[in-house]
């Protein structure tokens, strides 16, 4: 009888252990499978098809969007000026209570914080760091933005390099925490929030009189067409999340407008390396955008961003 019970217990144990291992095996293969589905489901251009054709061979697949810090730097380096009125007011931070709104605005406030810091706006940098902290705390991202980070920011407020380092570190704390805790949908939403804020700032800062075919900021805005399929794949990996589904609709609406902007890239790509060991990737690209399409894009971005910060 005892032997029978042991056997029966062992059998149960085997089944349960096998189930546990199976669950973990499924989990590790999840990204790969989702990436494979994404590669099949998403309508992509010829170049995208080439780019993503062997995607299912790797164990891990990362879709990397510009971080809010990089987004802000790209807007600034394209010649944008600083206009605090365009940023999401820090007082709005008290309004956000859902995971979706806090995630979006963690990205938005981190972009605004980066933007203010790049222009040496000391008080605004502190205020936006505190606003970003509220969002991170609300999302339960433990110690991503610690009081120590804020104190260090205040102590080094005139040292831009240190401030950039603090922003990058706090953002990595948030994104790694979310990834580690299987909250990849929230991590993706944070990135989309920061990316959208950068697009909003850039579109708002193009002067009405700008020559659209020869303007660095417009070039940067058009370049974002290249990131749309990466965003779609990033979101598609979390497509079961209702918040992600809502954001996908916004991205699809933007993509419909970007599809009206023809963009070509040279087929031939070469490289050359200088004496400092820096390689230049040599190629060319061109785009055509009409005033009508630019205005449509600007308005759509404004509406989406307004929804995100309301």
């Amino acid at each position, binding site marked *: 009888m005892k032997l029978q019970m042991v056997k029966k217990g062992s059998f*149960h144990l085997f089944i349960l252990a096998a189930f546990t291992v199976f669950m973990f095996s499924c989990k590790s293969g999840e990204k790969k499978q989702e990436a494979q589905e994404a590669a099949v489901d998403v309508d992509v251009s010829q170049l995208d098809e080439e780019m993503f054709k062997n995607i299912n061979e790797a164990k891990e*697949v990362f879709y990397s969007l510009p971080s809010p810090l990089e987004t802000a730097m790209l807007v600034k380096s394209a010649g944008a000026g600083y206009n605090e009125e365009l940023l999401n007011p820090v007082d709005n931070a008290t309004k956000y209570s859902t995971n979706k709104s806090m995630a979006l605005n963690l990205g938005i406030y981190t972009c605004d914080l980066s933007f203010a810091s790049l222009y040496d706006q000391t008080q605004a940098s502190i205020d936006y760091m505190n606003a970003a902290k509220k969002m991170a705390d609300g999302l339960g991202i433990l110690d991503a933005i610690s009081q120590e980070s804020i104190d260090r920011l205040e102590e080094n407020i005139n040292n831009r390099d240190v401030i950039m380092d603090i922003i*990058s570190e706090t953002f990595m704390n948030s994104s790694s925490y979310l990834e580690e805790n299987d909250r990849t949908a929230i991590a993706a939403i944070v990135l989309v929030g920061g990316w959208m804020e950068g697009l909003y700032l850039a579109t708002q800062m193009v002067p009405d009189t700008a020559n659209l075919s020869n303007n660095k900021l417009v070039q940067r805005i058009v370049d974002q067409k*290249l990131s749309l399929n990466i965003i779609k794949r990033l979101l598609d990996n979390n497509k079961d999340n209702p918040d992600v589904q809502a954001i996908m609709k916004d991205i699809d609406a933007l993509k419909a407008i970007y599809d009206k902007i023809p963009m070509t890239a040279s087929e031939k790509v070469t490289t050359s390396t200088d004496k400092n060991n*820096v390689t230049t990737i040599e190629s060319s690209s061109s785009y055509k955008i009409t005033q009508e399409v630019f205005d449509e894009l600007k308005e759509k971005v404004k509406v989406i961003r307004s929804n995100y910060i309301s």
Partner: protein
Amino acid sequence: MKRVLTLLLFISAFFVIGTQNSQAQCKGFAKNVCKLELVPFTHDGNYHAAVLTEGEEAELYKTFYSGQDYRIAVCGSDNLPEIEFSVMDAAQNVLYTNKDHDFAKTWDFKLQASQQLKIVVKVPSRGDKSKDPESGCVAIMFGFKVK
């Protein structure tokens, strides 16, 4: 049955804690080891790290912008063989591979035109069948120069 459930809980906890520990180690590895390879570039703040085993690959897709100075850093835990990485354009042309540069951990580059690039990272297999393949953290990090 109670014993079985206890054992099951133990096994589950072992897997969960083991997985989370590996991931937490990767975060520490990325932050304390790999990020240093980016100096003097500014880390963009994004986190891309995973536990890979000998013979496994990871891929990363990212848009890079004209006029910016970038550095890629790809690092692996000490127990892993030297990590291979290649950078390809959309047409799958290899623009750079660190196999031609003594498995360098970093590559500095800039672009004349913005484009999507694919970074393929591989943990080579040592081919020693008498030992189990090693697993460890691999991190891919990006830095840029603030302008």
